[in-house]
């Protein structure tokens, strides 16, 4: 009889920090102690605290262990699993809790403010066992829809819940379904956009890895509502664990008859397949994604007609994001009112964010809409490491914008973010501190869009490249008067004339950094100076004459002979010759060289 469950995170983050080895080590140790029949090892999806991986939870106590290594396993087995004594040194030390650290994950500041709806089963069930999903009310919502609710009822529930698309645009989900429902056609399709492309965002991957059946259930519900019997999940091939678990889940659902013919004896047929994307960012744009499923090069089409009217193989199609689908079974079971009770007036429910950048708790968090950025960064995220100051947060990836420190009390919801020139996007949230150069950040995102532009329309193909060239000029110290104005003009033109969402949003990082950090652009252009000290070509290496002993070591290390001086008296660096390689700083034994 099982008396304890040990949950080991099997998400991509913890896998790469070695969680698979923990499982084998644990199995071996349990067998050595003869308690393998009392303790169950459960490989789950992501818990969210990826920076602390590999993570492990022991139930029934709910003890949360972080950064567990293979050689910690004997101690955990001997002390905790055999004798019931928690191994204190491995318990996650919650910075915000101070000395009285919580042993249970649910009591940590990281979890307390969270509300897990889309992620509710991630880190709780074994995603490769359909019975575990069924145990936590899985497929009940599909059963309810097929046997109790009419197709119109389901649309009404979604409408009342206020659910909006979680992939970035925030379009009301019920409306999308209504459009496809209204069409008459011999064939319709349900598509899931799992081509998560924003740098830093990985919530869709985590749901696929941690709770794949939630997606299958929701897509079957969508099929019932719009009258489709075939679904496709378009997922990037770079997500091998997600693809594998989703395939296992689809096979299990088929074995149980939860996919296939005559589901629950109601006469409703639905099946689904996976389509792998090759990692082009543009394929996250819905029309390009559909084109790619059809077997063509992933290029966007002109809208209208919208996919709900003429989508996959020219048939009416709904296409929703993974996180959007993951909310739907819960809404059906718990009701529209329950869902609408969370969030703000126009943004209902919760949103998952991938916290990254200069923040203590990097990982995945799910919070009610309307939570302020301050709460996310300081309470859930644990603040900025090394006592640095918060400068800005970037949301929405290459399509979004930044939120400066002055707006840190902005509630995070669709409309508030748009009002301040950013966007929700798919939920990447990158925190930046005083060492980040905002011009450099804008350049980083533009490099990404230039790489990823499919080239079909001119504004995006040529326009973004011209913008990038100007940004490179500015960060190289060759910026000139008028560059900012040129950037703005190009940005507005590209936004207005690009074919698809990729181009229409590509200038956003530039526009929003210009809006809040124009002074940094000006410092680069007019003073040839990078205030954050990030832009290498604008950096100046200087020898402090008071500290320099005149040992000549730096002069010997300098690859271009830019450093000269008399032995035993201070040396100097010729700024015209200096290539800013930093070799001198590393060589100096007296900390006499600094970067400005």
């Amino acid at each position, binding site marked *: 009889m099982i008396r304890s469950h040990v949950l080991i995170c099997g998400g991509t983050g913890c896998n790469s920090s070695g969680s698979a080895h923990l499982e084998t080590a644990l199995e071996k140790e349990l067998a050595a102690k003869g308690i393998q029949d009392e303790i169950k090892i459960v490989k789950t999806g992501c818990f969210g605290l990826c920076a602390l991986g590999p993570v492990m939870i022991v139930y029934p106590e709910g003890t949360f262990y972080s950064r567990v290594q293979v050689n910690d396993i004997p101690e955990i087995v001997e002390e905790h699993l055999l004798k*019931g004594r928690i191994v204190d040194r491995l318990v996650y030390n919650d910075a915000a809790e101070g000395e009285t650290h919580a042993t249970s994950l649910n009591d940590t500041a990281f979890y307390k403010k969270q509300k897990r709806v889309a992620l509710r089963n991630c880190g709780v069930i074994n995603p490769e066992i359909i019975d575990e999903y069924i*145990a936590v009310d899985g497929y009940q919502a599909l059963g309810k829809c097929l046997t109790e609710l009419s197709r119109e009822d389901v649309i009404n529930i979604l409408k009342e819940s206020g659910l909006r698309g979680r992939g970035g645009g925030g379009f009301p989900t019920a409306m999308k379904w209504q459009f496809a429902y209204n069409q008459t056609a011999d064939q319709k399709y349900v598509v899931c956009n799992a081509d998560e492309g924003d740098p830093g965002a990985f919530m869709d991957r985590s749901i696929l890895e941690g709770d794949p059946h939630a997606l299958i259930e929701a897509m079957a519900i969508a099929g019932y509502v719009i009258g489709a019997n075939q679904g496709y999940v378009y997922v990037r091939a770079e997500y091998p664990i997600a693809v594998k678990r989703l395939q296992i889940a689809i096979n299990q659902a088929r074995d149980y008859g939860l996919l296939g013919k005559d589901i629950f004896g109601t006469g409703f047929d639905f099946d689904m397949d996976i389509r792998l994307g090759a990692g082009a960012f543009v394929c996250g744009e819905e029309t390009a994604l559909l084109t790619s499923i059809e077997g063509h090069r992933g290029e966007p089409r002109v809208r209208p007609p919208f996919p709900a009217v003429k989508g996959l193989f020219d048939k009416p199609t709904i296409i929703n994001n993974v996180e959007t689908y993951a909310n739907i079974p819960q809404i059906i079971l718990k009701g529209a009112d329950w869902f609408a009770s969370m969030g703000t007036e126009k943004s209902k429910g919760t949103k998952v964010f991938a916290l990254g950048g200069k923040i203590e708790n990097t990982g995945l968090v799910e919070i009610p809409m309307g939570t302020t950025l301050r709460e996310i960064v300081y309470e859930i995220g644990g603040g900025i490491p090394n006592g640095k100051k918060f400068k800005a947060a970037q949301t929405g990836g290459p399509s979004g914008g930044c939120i400066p420190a002055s707006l840190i009390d902005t509630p995070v919801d669709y409309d508030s973010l748009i009002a301040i020139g950013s966007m929700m996007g798919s939920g990447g949230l990158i925190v930046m501190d005083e060492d980040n150069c905002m011009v450099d950040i804008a350049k980083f995102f533009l490099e990404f869009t230039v790489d990823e532009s499919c080239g079909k329309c001119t504004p995006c193909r040529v326009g973004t490249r011209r913008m990038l060239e100007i940004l490179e000029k500015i960060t190289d110290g060759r910026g000139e008067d008028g560059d900012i104005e040129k950037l703005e003009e190009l940005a507005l033109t590209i936004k207005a004339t690009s074919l698809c969402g990729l181009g229409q949003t590509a200038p956003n990082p530039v526009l929003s950094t210009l809006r809040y950090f124009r002074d940094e652009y000006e410092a680069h252009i007019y003073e040839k100076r990078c205030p954050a000290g990030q832009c290498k070509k604008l950096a100046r290496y200087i020898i402090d004459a008071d500290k320099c002993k005149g040992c000549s070591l730096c002069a010997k290390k300098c690859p271009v002979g830019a450093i000269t001086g008399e032995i035993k008296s201070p040396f100097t660096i010729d700024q015209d010759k200096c290539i800013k390689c930093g070799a001198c700083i590393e060589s100096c034994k007296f900390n006499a060289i600094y970067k400005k």
Partner: protein
Amino acid sequence: MKSLAELAAIRERMKDKVVLREGVAGTRVVVGMATCGISAGARPVLNTFVEEVNNEGLADTVTVTQTGCIGICQYEPVVEIFEAGKDKVTYVKMTPDKVKRVVAEHLKKGNIVSEYTIGNAQ
């Protein structure tokens, strides 16, 4: 799957198997599992508790867990039962047979088996 009843059956069968992960439930049964407890036979006591609690369908209200040495080694195996709003009950010199009675009478019906408690042992 041809009916909702099939789904419900799987759910019922599986529910007890995942309930452990919902965290500590209302009533806690704590078995002393230090070296002294183990050598006095705490392991079969612990395992019998887990089995009986599951067999009696109490898994969603009772959590069985271990702890270290309570300090009364001569009375091991020691089991303490904590219920919200009630004084804790300490059972001593437990055996698997005694466990069955404690589960049936104390955990199920709410009647303390006073002959096994520490008060009677002293």
